[in-house]
């Protein structure tokens, strides 16, 4: 079922439960993001995005393997198996003697560069709302969500690297090839993807050519609802091509679902207002 975010904002005053009711109609289950207790001689196996992973516990050592698989991006529920059909090269992590592992989603460790399929022109004094789907990283904690308990983390989907800015001064980031979403179709949001609500406000007197956008994923908080992962809201105020954009990260739960709870904190704590050059109008870079 679809819902225009714009319509949602309009209707929000009348009913704030619109999203909740929509989420409940879907069959998506976020079964992966929880704690799993290990039994003797059992191996945990699962898949998120195009990464398969296996976890085994031997006394004080966690044995973990991650493997990129090229087939379609999807997720498999967590299973415990007795043995494996394939030989794996395990990585060994010495930790405490806890026998439970916590699997949590996290946002990527670098900024995300969003490239809409078509350059959008946002007229002066106009706002524009949309969503982007960010493939999450998977963090494995021994027993509890504490920084010192983090065993390892890995991306569910390997994103290609890109550069944002000029070759001598810019930002190394991940490239998000998916288009921006104007309407939420929950069936298209997989459980290793986090929805990031973005609002762009063109406060300048000229048309904003929106062809690249840097979202600083390290500054966003990750929330989990009954059936969805989403991030803090991002508000970008564009004040002109020659000026830096003002970025505001929404504090508190996004107003998408009242059941949202914080599941992971930002990698870097954001300051209230971030002045960043968030838009990038393609400039011809001397290539030869």
């Amino acid at each position, binding site marked *: 079922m679809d819902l225009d975010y714009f319509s949602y904002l309009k209707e929000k005053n009348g009913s704030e439960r619109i999203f909740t009711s929509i989420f409940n109609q879907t069959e998506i289950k976020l079964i992966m993001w929880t704690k799993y207790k290990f039994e003797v001689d059992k191996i945990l196996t699962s898949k998120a995005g195009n990464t398969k992973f296996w976890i085994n516990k031997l006394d004080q050592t966690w044995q973990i393997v991650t493997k990129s698989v090229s087939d379609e991006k999807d997720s498999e529920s967590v299973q415990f198996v007795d043995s494996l059909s394939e030989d794996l090269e395990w990585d060994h992590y010495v930790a405490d003697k806890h026998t439970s592992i916590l699997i949590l989603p996290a946002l990527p460790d670098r900024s995300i*560069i969003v490239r809409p399929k078509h350059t959008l022109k946002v007229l002066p004094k106009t706002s524009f709302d949309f969503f982007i789907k960010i493939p999450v990283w998977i963090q494995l904690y021994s027993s509890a969500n504490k920084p010192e308990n983090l065993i390892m983390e890995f991306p569910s989907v*390997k994103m*290609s*690297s*890109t*550069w*944002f800015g000029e*070759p*001598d001064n*810019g930002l*190394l980031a991940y*490239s998000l090839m998916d288009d921006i979403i104007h309407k939420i179709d929950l069936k298209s949001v997989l459980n290793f993807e986090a929805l990031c609500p973005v609002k762009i406000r063109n406060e300048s007197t000229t048309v904003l050519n929106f062809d690249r956008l840097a979202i600083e994923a390290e500054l966003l908080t990750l929330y989990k609802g009954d059936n969805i992962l989403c991030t803090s809201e991002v508000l970008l105020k564009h004040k002109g091509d020659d000026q830096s954009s003002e970025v505001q990260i929404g504090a508190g739960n996004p107003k998408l679902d009242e059941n949202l709870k914080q599941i992971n904190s930002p990698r870097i704590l954001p300051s209230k207002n971030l002045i960043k050059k968030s838009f990038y109008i393609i400039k011809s*870079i001397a*290539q*030869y």
Partner: protein
Amino acid sequence: MLEQLKQYVEEPTLLKIRNIILIIVFGYALLQLVMLVVRRLFWKNLKQQSRMILSKTILYTGFSIIILLILKELNVKVGAILGAAGVVGVIIGFASQTSIGNIISGLFIISEKSYEIGDLIRVGDKMGVVYSIDLLSLKLKTLDNLLIRIPNQTLISTEVTNITRFPIRRMDIDIGVAYKEDLGKVINVLKKLATENPNCLDEPEPLILIKNYGDSSINILYGLWFEKSNYVTLRNSIMQEILNAFREEGIEIPFPHISLYTGEATKPFPVEFNSNSK
């Protein structure tokens, strides 16, 4: 024991020795304490280059003060020594113009900040990581772990390329394809390889330039942008991938060859058998 010593040495001399020992011990300890405090407070935010300059400045200043205090304790007139040092300095200066030139060049190099400790640079035909920038010379650690000393005066008048100054770089690969090949297809294959290689950046976009018509091939420049630390991984992977992709697509990378014609390209080269030849 002190009484026994007093038989041989006068008391004022003993006091001086004691004071000098105290100056050395406490001076050195104080210097170490200052270094410790500076390291705790500022080290984290400083680059390796700045750390080296700061620590050397503190140490040289500290040791100079200790030496001056010792001289004072020995009742040596510091002013006279400095005056003499000035005269001696002029003499030494004339005698060692190269060294002074190196020192001044070193100061310019440090202030110019064209490269810092840890940067990979190329000087002439030598390439290596900047190991240290000293008063007289720059020490370069080559990639095969040799240490090269280059005088600062040489450096200031030589072209120096800093390879790792910026976070991203472009790797240029020259590729030659046979004249019979469809260049559109070749370009598409190269674009696909750049997109699929994880070490190659999506943006700036790869440069694919048809450079010229060579003797044996059409030459293409293939420039890929990458994060500077991924040079070896990208080079090794992309070279293999180009070869494999060209093999799969049937694109020929020709070896140098010469075609001989007898005036007209359409006629075969005439071969004549001479029955008289032995």
